[in-house]
């Protein structure tokens, strides 16, 4: 038997990132539990997307560490982090509009499998997100919700261990959202770790086991949904405070 894996798959340690005078992330630390769905929430401008960008190498932190399976990822390039098994989706989808659904899936690099296997996997994932009937359609012709499903499916091409989803529910109709949530729970059941940034509180509160709350670039609370909903600091961050 090998050593027992750490119960946290990823740990942000005192991450900082400033843009000019704006300290977007200002000493943020949290640990993502393995094999669970976690949520990262906070009011507008609290630093959630910047944190995702720091975790995935789109931005380099000014200081602090991103520890993934015992290794510091801070300063690595996005493709290097991607190859370690971390993928993400974006708030505004970044699919290729002039490629078909299937081509979008096969555009993922670094698969390290024969084309035939990649194709099979792509077809399987397209089915997984119920887009099979649209496999030959151009990305740009899909509805906004379908584009989000496509980006989600594409993020799974490399069989990642950790999946970061930036506002998966925004602009997605209720039916597609339910599909998406079902898929997320299936991934969880397979042992994947998922972190969701989301403004739809019903998604966060009903589907995340652990929630991290950010405000002004730092984590102000952490816990299960029912606890977070009662937390005075969280209520204040969202609702404001009287003078």
């Amino acid at each position, binding site marked *: 038997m090998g050593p027992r894996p750490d119960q946290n798959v990823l740990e942000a340690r005192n991450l900082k990132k400033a843009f000019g*005078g704006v300290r977007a992330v200002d000493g943020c630390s949290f640990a993502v539990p393995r094999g*669970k*769905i976690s949520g990262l929430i906070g*009011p*507008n*401008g609290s630093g959630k997307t910047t944190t995702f960008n720091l975790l995935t190498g789109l931005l380099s932190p000014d200081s602090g560490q991103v520890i993934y399976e015992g290794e510091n990822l801070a300063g690595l390039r996005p493709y290097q982090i991607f190859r370690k098994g971390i993928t993400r989706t974006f708030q505004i989808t970044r699919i290729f509009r002039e490629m078909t659904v299937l081509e979008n899936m096969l555009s993922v690099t670094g698969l390290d499998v024969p084309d035939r296997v990649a194709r099979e996997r792509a077809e399987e994932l397209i089915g997984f997100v119920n887009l099979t009937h649209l496999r030959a359609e151009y990305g740009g012709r899909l509805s906004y919700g379908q584009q989000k499903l496509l980006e989600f499916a594409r993020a799974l091409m490399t069989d990642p261990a950790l999946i970061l989803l930036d506002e998966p529910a*925004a*602009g997605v109709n209720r039916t597609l959202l339910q599909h998406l949530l079902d898929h997320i*729970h299936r991934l*969880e*059941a397979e042992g994947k770790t998922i972190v969701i940034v989301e*403004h*739809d*509180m*019903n998604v*966060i*509160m*009903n*589907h995340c*086991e652990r929630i991290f709350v950010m405000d002004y670039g730092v984590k102000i609370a952490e816990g299960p*949904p*029912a606890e*977070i*909903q009662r937390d005075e600091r*969280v*209520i*204040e961050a*969202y*609702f*404001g*405070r*009287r*003078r």
Partner: protein
Amino acid sequence: MPLLELRNVAAGYGPIEILHGVSLQVNAGEVVSVIGPNGAGKSTAFKVVMGLINYLGGQISFDGHDLVGVRPDRILALGLGYVPQGRVVFSQMTVRENLEMGAYLQRDKAKLEASMGWVFSLFPRLGERKRQLAGTMSGGEQQMLAMGRALMMRPRMMMLDEPSLGLSPRFVDEVFDKIVELARGGLTVMLVEQNAARALEISHRGYVLELGRNRFEGTGRELLDNPEVKRLYLGGEVRALRGS
């Protein structure tokens, strides 16, 4: 009769409907807040009043005039000012030039100078920095400039979209103080704010929107004390967690 009234207004972006029949009233001399969680349609309500997005139904009137289909510059000329979200200033222009842009409908040079003097008396820092490029000012100063620019036409009413968003606490105080000062001077104000507590505190009345519909309304005090309003921000009752 209310100064501004939206009756059952539907609006959106392209074919996507965001407001599904929202009603708001602002009486002359009032400060009214519009609050609600992300995606409630607060900014959209302001944009449809100014004719900036797709109007899909309902009635909008200001001072007895029907605003539906009216161009934004005509709305401005009727006495309704608007400060969009995000401190939208002309960053490559000076403070003075920005203020002149706010008064481009004003052909009378003497009136323009009088407005400029009034804005400088309200915001002394803008007066000290007339020749500074707007893009080089701090966020709080840019917000003051955006407000000053909207005041150059001496509007009867002003709509402020998220005036405190992204500002340091010191400037947040300053912005709210300034709104109170303007209201005392007779300006009618409607504001959208993420800092709901601070906004309601200075408001006569408020509306709470959720997902493009009216949810609650009342005096600032009633809404501040209503726990249901706070609950909207963090989701409803948590059901049993799935998949675990």
